[in-house]
């Protein structure tokens, strides 16, 4: 059976057995080419797909999935999901009202190119980096692409699908100058292959890692922090669950009960836009078939919304914001698509530290208390100029206090998928504690 046929089969069997069922199917394709020492060292071509069901019987919810699409396997899935539902003690489970969602293609011909072209992208990326004599060792130079087909249907009328995907280039290497060694990486992602240019990705890597060579220790103290976009997104990724209504329900978010209140500086606006023209994780509807839309989480410092699926929305007496997430193997959750820190009036570098890289983001941050202590790399800024690179320091503080100390945001958005998919401008924060040598 195809995933489409499997979906139809499961809906029919569920109707016969008198249970509500939602089927989520994903098929994915991946190609990955890794260059090493000027040949393609690793080649992986992959296809994977499966179908997962959420079943509701007498108000109890159960899950099961299969990658095998035979009638025997699908019958097993339905029987197991029902048995798993019956074990639950919680009642009140339901499937949301559905509607036809149509078919869409968000990828088009974005990844269509001869394979020779794709190989060239991996080889030229390595070559571009090796051209600089300061490069000691290239760990990886990769071209990779992914394509997804997502299908959703439910006994309550949801029905639709979409195709999406992206390509990326990634290089990691060690650079050296005198005694100073720095390992860095550069990742460029795009929905269209022609938007990736190995020469400029290599150049970007050399610039971003090269500028950190010869770093000095930073003197402990309080400085203005200028977060580069990817560094700010990395910090945000450790705390994004604060906006999850699921965390609110489990008592794990300190933002609970603060809707409509000021939680950040007026310079801070945060929204999720699943239909952004440049979005890398765009989707027309979420994992339950709720149409997606632009949702402000924070507008000019005021907490405007949490991220909801239909279950959290019902429990908190709110509306689903289209943030349901689920893989075919998993259970229902909540999460963002393209998280965007709104650009502002611009940041003017004066005196402080430009944070270029944050490390150990998840180990060094406590999303419940908001406390963080993170190792970082950066450039010391003096008189509006980059004076010298700095290393061996941590920046620490509390995320809730940091939000209030945001002074300004830059004019230009930069996209990333490293820690979470989204975009941010440079973000200036006053009075951040830095512990150095």
């Amino acid at each position, binding site marked *: 059976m195809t995933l489409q046929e499997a979906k139809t089969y499961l809906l029919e069997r569920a109707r016969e057995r008198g249970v509500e069922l939602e089927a989520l199917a994903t098929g994915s394709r991946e190609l990955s080419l890794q260059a090493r020492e000027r040949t393609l060292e690793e080649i992986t071509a992959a296809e994977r797909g499966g179908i997962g069901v959420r079943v509701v019987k007498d108000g109890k919810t159960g899950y099961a999935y299969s990658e095998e699409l035979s009638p025997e396997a699908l019958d097993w899935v339905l029987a197991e999901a029902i048995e*798993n539902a019956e074990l639950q003690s919680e009642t009140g489970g339901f499937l949301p009202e559905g509607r036809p969602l149509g078919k869409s293609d968000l990828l088009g011909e974005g990844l269509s190119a001869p394979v020779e072209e794709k190989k060239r992208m991996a080889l030229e990326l390595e070559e571009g980096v090796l051209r600089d004599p300061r490069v000691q060792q290239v760990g990886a130079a990769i071209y990779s692409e992914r394509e997804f087909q997502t299908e959703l249907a439910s006994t309550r009328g949801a029905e639709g699908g979409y195709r999406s995907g992206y390509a990326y280039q990634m290089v990691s290497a060690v650079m050296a100058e005198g005694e100073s060694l720095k390992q860095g990486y550069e990742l460029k992602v795009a929905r269209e292959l022609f938007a990736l240019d190995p020469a400029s990705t290599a150049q970007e890597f050399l610039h971003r890692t090269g500028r950190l060579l010869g770093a000095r220790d930073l003197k402990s103290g309080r400085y203005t922090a200028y977060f580069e976009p990817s560094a700010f997104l990395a910090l945000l990724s450790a705390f994004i669950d604060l906006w999850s209504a699921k965390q609110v329900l489990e008592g794990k978010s300190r933002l609970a009960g603060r809707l409509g209140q000021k939680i950040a500086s007026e310079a801070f606006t945060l929204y999720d836009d699943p239909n952004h023209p440049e979005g890398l994780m765009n989707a027309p509807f979420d994992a339950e078939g709720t149409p997606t839309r632009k949702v402000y989480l924070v507008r000019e410092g005021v907490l405007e919304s949490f991220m909801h699926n239909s279950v959290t929305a019902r429990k908190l007496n709110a509306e689903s914001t289209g943030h349901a997430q689920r893989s075919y193997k998993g259970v229902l959750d909540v999460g963002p698509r393209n998280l965007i820190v709104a650009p502002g009036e611009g940041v003017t570098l004066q005196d402080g530290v430009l944070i270029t890289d944050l490390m150990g983001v998840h180990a060094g941050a406590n999303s419940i208390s908001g406390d963080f202590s993170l190792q970082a790399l950066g450039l010391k800024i003096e008189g509006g100029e980059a004076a010298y690179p700095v290393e061996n320091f941590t920046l620490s503080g509390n995320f809730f206090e940091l939000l209030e100390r945001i002074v300004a945001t830059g004019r230009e958005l930069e996209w990333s998928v490293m820690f979470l998919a989204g975009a941010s401008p440079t973000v200036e924060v006053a009075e951040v504690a830095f512990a150095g040598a």
Partner: protein
Amino acid sequence: MLQESTAERLIQHARARGADFAEIYVERWKKRNLRLLDLEVQEATSGIETGAGVRLFFGTQVVYAYTNDLSEANLLEVTDTLARLKGEAGQVDARGAGGLDFRGSAPAGLHGPQLPPDERDKRWRIERLAEADAAARVGPAIKKVQLYLIEWDQEIQVASSEGVWNTDRRVRTRYVVTAIAENEESMQTGFAGPGLSVGLELFDLEPPAVHGRAAGEQALTLLRAKPAPAGPMPVVIGNAFGGVIFHEALGHLLETTAVARKTSVLTDKLGEKIASEAVTYVDDGTLPHGWGSSEYDDEGAPTERTVLIEKGVLKSYMVDRWGSLMTGYRPTGSGRRQDYTFAPTSRMRNTFIETGDTPVEKLFENIEFGLYAKKMGGGQVRPGSGEYNFAVQEGYVIRNGRVEEPVKGAMLVGKGPESIQRIVAVAADRKNAPGMCGSLSGAVPVEVGQPHLLISEIVVGGEG
């Protein structure tokens, strides 16, 4: 799962496109997970995973593809795509023509289940887990008990251009008890997690009441533990999961993945004395019903008992096909992978220090001041050098030959190849414990193990 004729066509197709070696791996899993918190079901999921992996060698260069569309047409297309990506000219190789002589054998069922997963319903499982919950509540300080049950039923099939045609079935069951104790000062967790290559008879072989109580008692012990002492000192490491240190800081250095690229400090040391004479280190894929056992590895080679170190002398590495090609060492049935989404690499199976002859009490006898690391926790290792730091989950101070008060926050810091030379005595109480080992080819089930043993000196990092 796969017809012999299909496998044959695929392999010949790959050979005709210039591959020196072609292998097809097919598998099907049934997985079930159940998580209970204070006996309320938090999570119950079930799934079937299935797929095929095609691996082609062009000399020592390897290309890999996987798919879960197992039709012959698709598998041929996948093989074509791989060969095209490699960009070899593609000529018919005489060795690929004229039919393959598959020499297969069926598994003997050495590790097969007595009570297969489908013979009991989920209520029965919850009742058995409830025995662990009750036993874990050894005192009022135990506030929460979490139970996690994992059931895997995996069937695999491997065919290769060297005539391999083997199937295997691996049924594995494991449960983990986590007891959380709390007083005014702190919150502590105790664990126990038995697992074997068996079915639901695990609950009889490893009684929930025993493991539940162990988890509860460990949590209570930790509640009254004092900060650990620091500095270099003699350390007695407990049996069973105590073996995790040498798994990480020695075992990984003996896999051809590291040895072939010469990134291991133990490269090119066969026949040399690398450990104290008290040490015999074995990786055994044949232990009956071992968590890391199987009849065949994921390259279709029969597993075996491989003596890695005998009385201190390095005897063998752990060798997969690629590793054998690169180093010339004989393959040891060590090619493993998490599932079809990974190409296999050389991996450990059940790896342990063999039993010695010193009575356990003797290990402690002459220690004036030291640490008894009874249960080990997690840690980190630098793969090349074997530098490690491991947390001691349950530790005690040793004073004048006696095990005294419990301590918490102890870290053992050292280098695997150095520590193995400092093992001065090995007791006669070897036990193994299950775990998951993560590496290039994903996470695979392994056992680690050892008897109680005495290391003359390890640096202990305490809290202070």
